[in-house]
């Protein structure tokens, strides 16, 4: 008996050494599907998230240290580029696509408007090396970071030693981006039973379910597939979307379906930012869709909305804005981290 008690005490002492308390850096409501990002290969950790945040806001990632990720993905625009149809990168160069908003990335399998990137970890390589975005060689970034005492300290804090590798930098960037979760819009509060829609929003929601939900599926407001939405080709850009990657002619004009969350913050819209307002977007589906035969099957039977319906739908879409996400201090420029570790 004594032996057993002794064993029990020993076991208890042993277990007290472990920290069972799990701090959650990534939470989502019950009505959300399971994320597709594999956390087993990149365990979330407070320091790695912070390091990722510092990197995200640091222009060291560009060739002449002038452009950071946040230059085109600003927190106050739901991490998209305000006022710019096409984003401008290094030396005021202008690219061919609109910078997409960044949130709920752990639920996404393909990245970029044409799905060129198959994993969140690799996504930063694209803008970093693009001659019109950050125009930097990734290997050179690892060299630049390795020369910085500040980053050595942060990599030590995050990974247990101060060796800086491309893998670690990309993992940290992924960690920060994964924590950009937006799940506190009015829609979410209604879903949780804490609030209710007004009449217009309710009507708008019903229209949404009938007309938009097959592609912009709730609760993420996108099924994150690719679709042809009938936009005429812009002859100055000649962007044919996914076919550039797959080289399959059937994929011509396929673009990734964006989420409708935080719409009010992420104007302008579409892959080339051609529409400034939600009215223009809905009018495209209302009046211009029939002009183009090459559209996805979900849109072939789209019946235009009347003016009342359009207004109701927009009222509903505005319930998808999440101001607590926009003003979340953990997502903004990491001033406090930079001051702490000078």
């Amino acid at each position, binding site marked *: 008996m004594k032996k057993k008690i002794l064993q029990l005490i020993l076991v208890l002492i042993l277990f007290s050494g472990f920290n069972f308390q799990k701090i959650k850096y990534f939470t989502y409501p019950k009505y959300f599907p399971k994320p597709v990002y594999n956390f087993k290969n990149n365990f979330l950790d407070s320091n790695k998230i912070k390091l990722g945040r510092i990197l995200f806001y640091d222009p060291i990632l560009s060739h002449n240290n002038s452009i950071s990720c946040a230059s085109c993905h600003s927190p106050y625009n739901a991490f998209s580029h305000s006022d710019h149809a096409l984003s401008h990168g290094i030396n005021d160069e202008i690219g061919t696509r609109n910078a997409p908003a960044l949130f709920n990335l752990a639920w996404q399998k393909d990245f970029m408007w044409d799905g060129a*990137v198959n*994993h969140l970890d690799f996504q930063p390589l*694209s803008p970093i090396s693009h001659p019109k975005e950050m125009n930097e060689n990734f290997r050179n970034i690892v060299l630049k970071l390795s020369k910085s005492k500040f980053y050595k300290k942060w990599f030590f804090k995050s990974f247990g030693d101060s060796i800086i590798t491309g893998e670690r930098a990309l993992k940290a960037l992924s960690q920060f981006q994964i924590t950009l979760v937006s799940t506190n819009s009015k829609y979410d509060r209604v879903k949780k039973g804490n609030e209710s829609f007004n009449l217009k929003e309710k009507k708008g929601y019903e229209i949404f379910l009938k007309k938009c939900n097959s592609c912009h599926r709730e609760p993420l407001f996108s099924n994150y597939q690719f679709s042809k939405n009938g936009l005429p080709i812009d002859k100055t850009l000649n962007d044919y979307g996914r076919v550039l990657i797959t080289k399959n002619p059937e994929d011509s004009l396929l673009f990734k379906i964006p989420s409708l969350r935080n719409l009010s913050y992420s104007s302008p819209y579409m892959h080339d930012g051609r529409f400034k307002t939600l009215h223009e977007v809905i009018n495209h589906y209302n009046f211009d869709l029939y002009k183009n035969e090459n559209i996805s099957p979900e849109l072939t039977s789209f019946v235009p909305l009347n003016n009342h319906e359009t207004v109701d739908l927009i009222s509903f879409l505005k319930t998808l804005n999440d101001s607590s996400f926009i003003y979340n201090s953990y997502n903004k420029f990491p001033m406090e981290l930079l001051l702490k570790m000078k």
Partner: protein
Amino acid sequence: MKRTIIKRFFWILVFNPLHLFSQYQICFNHKFQNDELIINKKNIIRDDTITISSLNYYVSMISLHNNSKIVYVDNQLGHLISHENHQSSCIVLDCKKIKFNSIHFKLGIDSITHTKGVLGNDLDPSQGMYWTWRSGYINLKLEGYSSICAAKNHFFQFHIGGYQHPNNTSHNIDLQTKKDSTMNISFDLFKLLNKIDLSQTFQIMSPSKKSVEISSYWKNSFYVE
């Protein structure tokens, strides 16, 4: 920094002595028409002069077999073989004395590894062997000059990659070997380049039919001496 490196070596010594006492290694010997490949050396063949300026490729999923029975599987996801960096053209296997008579490996990186997210060491994207404009490892990066090549400065560059059907450019290779502490596998670049009309084909840098075709020539350029 130095301290951490010394510490690492210490732990490797203590816990993983096999690294030091491994029995076998596989060495990739690069050749050009049976001669040793020398970077930036002019190789004259018929009406063409070919110079190789850089050669890098991935080898993965190495296993040793004894009469079709697997006796050893390498657990590293990928090895970068770089001709500029001689240290990496030999791969040390973590195994004791075993019987085997054939070696299997994959040229390039398989599709499952491609979906794992970012990986380290030889597979770190900072090695310059990962495409930035789209996802995918560059399985073979071969660059050089050919006098008949119509490109600027007669420069040819083949960045062969692609992991999805129908553009998969990784290949399994099985070679019979003698049991030896160093297994020498030869890769004759002439065998590969001889199949390509360099006056017409000199720039391939994306997954396509053409890269699959070149990857099959690549596969057929390996042999045991």
